[in-house]
């Protein structure tokens, strides 16, 4: 058994506000094995991006890790100083964000940004760094990389910019990449290119990826395992096949049913009524119970924890009580 690359234990992220403390991420635990792609999926406000930011230590104040541990290759990284974290970030953890335009500096050429990143984190000389930068640009599929290396970010299209960002994240050969909605700002045909690229690069370099997205289709294409988040908690986690084909949590089930798919004709989509609770009023018990068609007494009172349901792990009282009130029977 190899040691997981990343372990997150009982992570809790809080935002102190004037009207009390908001819990954006609540008791979240998961791990990522070397070379594995973990998808983190959920709707806006589910806490998925916040979890990603916590792992790379980029929580925006006043947000803070209130409790829990984050371990990279067995060593804690959640309690490091900013200086130490800076060394890890970029060197061992890379990041790809949604909007490629804001994650590149518009004032520097892409070559300079790549070279500087490489120089900061490795022992290469400037000449080596530039050669390596050029190779990275070629590897992510920038045509005529020799000519484009001295271009500025605005001279690239959206898809090409995202390729540059991927090159930037991979240029120091990190062990883990946090990719936060890497394809959301792109068109579908470009999205497919970027997904294929990410998958190939991670396979070649043995890099693990934590892929944060709201798009189950992207998860199905690229991830090995998936964690489904709802209202700051992981409600279901398991292999992509288990979660997509045999979801245990009613939220996952509803989510899957609500996605229209080409080739599966349905008259009406499954509808989860209501919307995700705001962080200010997360209901007691299971946070999903007001929208859950199976909810019973216990769901209103007690908060379920993740447990093995055969296949995936899910946080739901249903099978624990071995009553599956399907609406047809009720």
């Amino acid at each position, binding site marked *: 058994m190899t040691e997981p690359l990343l372990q997150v234990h009982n992570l809790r992220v809080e935002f102190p506000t004037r009207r009390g403390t908001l819990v954006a991420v609540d008791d979240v635990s998961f791990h990522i094995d070397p070379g594995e792609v973990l998808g983190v999926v959920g*709707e806006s406000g589910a806490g998925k991006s916040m979890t990603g930011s916590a792992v790379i230590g980029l929580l925006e104040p006043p947000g803070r890790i209130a409790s829990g541990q984050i371990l990279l290759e067995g060593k804690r990284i959640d309690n490091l100083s900013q200086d130490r974290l800076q060394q890890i970030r970029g060197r061992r953890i890379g990041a790809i964000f949604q909007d490629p335009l804001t994650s590149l500096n518009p004032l520097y050429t892409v070559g300079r940004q790549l070279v500087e990143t490489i120089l900061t984190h490795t022992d290469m000389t400037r000449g080596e760094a530039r050669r390596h930068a050029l190779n990275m640009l070629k590897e992510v599929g920038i045509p005529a990389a020799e000519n484009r290396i001295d271009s500025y970010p605005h001279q690239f299209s959206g898809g090409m910019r995202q390729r540059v960002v991927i090159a930037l994240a991979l240029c120091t050969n990190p062990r883990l990449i946090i990719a936060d909605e890497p394809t959301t700002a792109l068109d579908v045909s470009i999205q*497919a290119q970027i997904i294929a690229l990410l998958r190939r690069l991670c396979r070649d370099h043995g890099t693990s990826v934590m892929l944060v997205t*709201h*798009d189950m289709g992207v998860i199905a294409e690229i991830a090995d395992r998936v964690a489904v988040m709802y209202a700051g908690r992981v409600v279901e986690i398991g292999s992509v096949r288990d979660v997509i084909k045999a979801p245990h949590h009613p939220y996952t089930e*509803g989510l899957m049913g609500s996605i*229209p798919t*080409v*080739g599966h*004709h349905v008259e009406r989509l499954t509808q989860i009524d209501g919307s995700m609770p705001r962080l200010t009023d997360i209901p007691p018990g299971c946070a999903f119970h007001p929208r859950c068609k199976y909810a019973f007494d216990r769901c209103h009172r007690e908060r379920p924890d993740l447990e093995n349901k055969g296949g995936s792990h899910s946080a739901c009282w249903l099978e624990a009580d071995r009553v599956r009130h399907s609406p047809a029977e009720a």
Partner: protein
Amino acid sequence: MSATPLLKLDGLARYFDVSPPLLNRLLERRGHVYLRAVEEVSLEIQKGQTFALVGESGCGKSTVARLVVGLYAPTRGKIEFEGVDIGGLRSRQARFPYQRRMQMIFQDPFASLNPRWRVVDIIAEPLRAYRLVSGRQAIRERVGELLTQVGLSPHDGSKYPHEFSGGQRQRISIARALASNPEFLVCDEPTSALDVSVQAQILNLMKDLQKRMELTYLLITHDLAVVYHMANRVGVMYLGRLCEVEDAKTLFARPRHPYTKLLLDTVPNLDLSGKERVPVAGEVPNPINPPPGCVFHPRCPHANERCRTEVPHPIPDGEGGMVACHGVQEGRLPA
């Protein structure tokens, strides 16, 4: 198929002048520059249908939507609503009766509702503008009715837009669009800004309303899965031009245009087939300087010399569908 379609676009084109300022043109001897956002778009929408226009960003689908409802004036071509060319009607007065009958739902429910107005005033605006209902009490009642129709409570009328979630705001937009009893709704990416579970609610609502009120939709979207779920007919756009128009069933089963095939191939799906996709290289070119010939030829695996020089014209298939591709016409590609 019935005789007169509810909406017919004939050779519709819209150019935008993106020229440099006059002084620069004079000093630098540069000419006018036009962005051809929409070029030669012809289609028919029958009553009660959902016609989806699909394409990537910058393909001109939203411009078509805005042309149809009259937010832009066409550069060329006709927009016929029940046989009357409304694109040619210049005076407000003349357009008025047609405008009431077609309404629009916008993409971003955070930007399309005035944050300083109460919901009741937002929804009542069309009622007042078209003088459909008069009297405070009557307006309140009608607004309550509309709110109930879209799954909100009549009491929500006294709130402001910021008190609602994205999905609820989109419901308010729909209620406002329905206020003038339209027959035709232009929906420009109505669910793109929403989460999937909320998207399902809105799509279900749109289907229910269509059935109940016999609405006709022009649905603009980039999401093929939404198209598959909603549309009877589909038009695929690329760089301002329609490349294929077909019944939804046929289009998804037998796409003919190489671009349609590309789009269908690249949609990530939940099949877990594990098949390696071959993503098509290249990106959408700049519409200010589109490639000559077929605009898709730089990315098309089947392009030949003719595609690089000659613009393909729509080939009707006799059943109202069409495809604009030299390869299909010559029989090089399976039709």
